[in-house]
């Protein structure tokens, strides 16, 4: 849906033409290699955070120092990997989804050797950025196409109805990248202290409060990926408004709040339960043994 391949339009629909092309869709692979490891990073920081909480309280020190060490090694690998992969993935977006890239960078005018602003505030109504400072020349061209002179298409290249909502994507992308870099830094620090985490209570406190950050980064990234491809549901082929099912607004008006309420309640319960069990720490050896015998 992000980058359809291997199809032909026949009988008024997209029909499969090459299964090999679908399996080797580069866009899909870069996205897969981005989302799955980001879940690994999230799990790694979760374990680091819970371990840090217990180490700060000197609970089961040997157990949690071990889990801290394992999680630190795991997290640093995938956090640093994601920074590199994220950059390559971004270049893939530049090549395959130019409107998304332009929205991610709030880049309005098509230009060669496009600059990159450290800080900007998009102004969609007037098709410009109301604030822009520390704009470094040629950096956007370099980042997106690995060539400082490359042409980067601006949003004005497309009619308004074919552009995604700029501000949401721009900010989501900024949040994801900023958190990605921050998490990379924390993972390196945790790795350095993997054998004696109790010597840096400050880092441990940071790691406890850090637990929500990978969740926010993942949600922001999801926003960039899915809102960024709008107004297309199948990029370049079918618009979201043309893909709507023939349902009454009442049905959808009931089902959406129902989803929000059910998931909202489940989320609260789930968070409470996770916190309850994370605080409780590991089960005594005897109970674990019972579960194991049952599984055997």
């Amino acid at each position, binding site marked *: 849906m992000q980058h359809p391949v291997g199809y032909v339009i026949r009988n008024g629909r997209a029909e499969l033409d090459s*299964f090999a092309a679908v399996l080797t869709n580069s866009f899909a692979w870069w996205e897969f290699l981005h989302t799955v490891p980001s879940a690994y990073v999230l799990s790694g920081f979760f374990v680091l955070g819970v371990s840090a909480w217990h180490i700060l309280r000197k609970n089961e020190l040997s157990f949690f120092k071990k889990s801290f060490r394992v999680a630190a090694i795991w997290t640093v690998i995938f956090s640093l990997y994601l920074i590199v992969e994220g950059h390559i993935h971004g270049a893939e977006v530049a090549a395959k989804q130019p409107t998304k890239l332009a929205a991610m960078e709030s880049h309005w005018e098509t230009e060669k050797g496009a600059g990159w602003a450290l800080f900007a505030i998009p102004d969609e109504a007037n098709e410009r950025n109301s604030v822009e400072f520390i704009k470094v020349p040629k950096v956007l061209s370099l980042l997106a196409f690995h060539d400082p002179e490359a042409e980067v298409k601006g949003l004005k290249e497309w009619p308004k109805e074919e552009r995604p909502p700029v501000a949401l994507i721009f900010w989501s992308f900024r949040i994801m990248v900023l958190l990605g870099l921050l998490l990379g830094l924390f993972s390196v620090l945790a790795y350095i202290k993997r054998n004696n985490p109790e010597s840096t209570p400050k880092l441990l406190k940071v790691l406890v409060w850090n637990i929500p950050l990978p969740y926010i980064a993942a949600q922001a990234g999801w926003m960039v990926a899915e809102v960024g491809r709008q107004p297309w549901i199948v990029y370049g082929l079918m618009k979201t408004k043309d893909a709507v*099912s*023939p*349902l009454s607004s009442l049905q959808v008006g009931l089902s959406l709040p*129902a989803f929000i309420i059910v998931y909202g309640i489940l989320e609260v319960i789930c968070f409470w339960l996770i916190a309850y069990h994370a605080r409780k720490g590991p089960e005594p050896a005897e109970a674990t043994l019972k579960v194991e015998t049952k599984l055997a």
Partner: protein
Amino acid sequence: MEMNIFQIIWFVLWGVLWAVYFMLDGFDLGAGSLLYILGKDEKDRRAIYQATGPFWDGNEVWLITAGGATFAAFPKAYAVMFSALYSALLLLLFSLIIRGVAIEYRNKHESPSWRSIWDLLFFLGSLLPALLLGVAFANIFKGVAIDQNGIFQETLFHLLNPYGLLGGLLFVFCFATHGAIWVAFKTMDPLSERAGNLAKKLWVVTLILVVLFWAYSFAATRIWDNYLKAPILFVFPALAVIAYLSVPVFLNKKAYFKAWVGSALTIVAFTAWGVAGLFPNILPSSIDPAYSLTIMNSSSSELTLKIMTAVAVIFVPIVLAYTIWAYKIFSHKITEKDIAY
């Protein structure tokens, strides 16, 4: 439009996926709907959870596969079906979500009120899917009001017609019978004996409902038409009857596993009865048979179906092998030492 062999293969596989789903999830949904009747105290309730706990999620994957196969093999039928049955399927989805959470969460906290809330949700989450699946399939057998553009012209309340509700009741009692037999097989006396006795009573109710449903189908649907055209198909309902009659014989001998196999075969043969009656329709239209979605006018391209067939040939045996393996590992009787749920 001409019919090709891959459309027929996928129609049969579509039927098989639903049949296996009903056969497997049927017992754990049924056992859940009997939570209060069979589970008099915490010990018995926990045994019921324990008897279904290692299996329910694997069983529900067959539902996802059945839905996925509909989507991939007959995308137009999938689109129309999921829009027409939107409210019913949404209720089904919520029931299954809450039920899954209930099974996994009930033992994560010690307070009795925590458990009783999840018990209630587990009970409702087991009863409702059985009812909704029955209503949905009875309506598919009867045909739903779709026009020439595949747009559903009625509402959820029209789906709750007498025939649809009879289908729902049939599924509830059939699954409850199936579940009671499973509990009898998996647990120790006195719970096992109570479940076995309850199964005998439920068996009678289900029998009456099946006879009514078959008669009503003859009067209100075209599902028997294929049988009059090709009498060889009577092998399915005949098999369902034979398998069903074997159930009380085994129940009286307390051969609960054999009774369960009899019940499982009944469900498979009964599903085959319905699916064979539908052929070549996936979703008949009650407005005009010409608007029905058939395996010809709603299938994917032949290339897609060929690739899916190759994938199925490779992976279905693997899935079957690990499913059987998982059932073998957890085939022991539940005792008080089993405390996972």
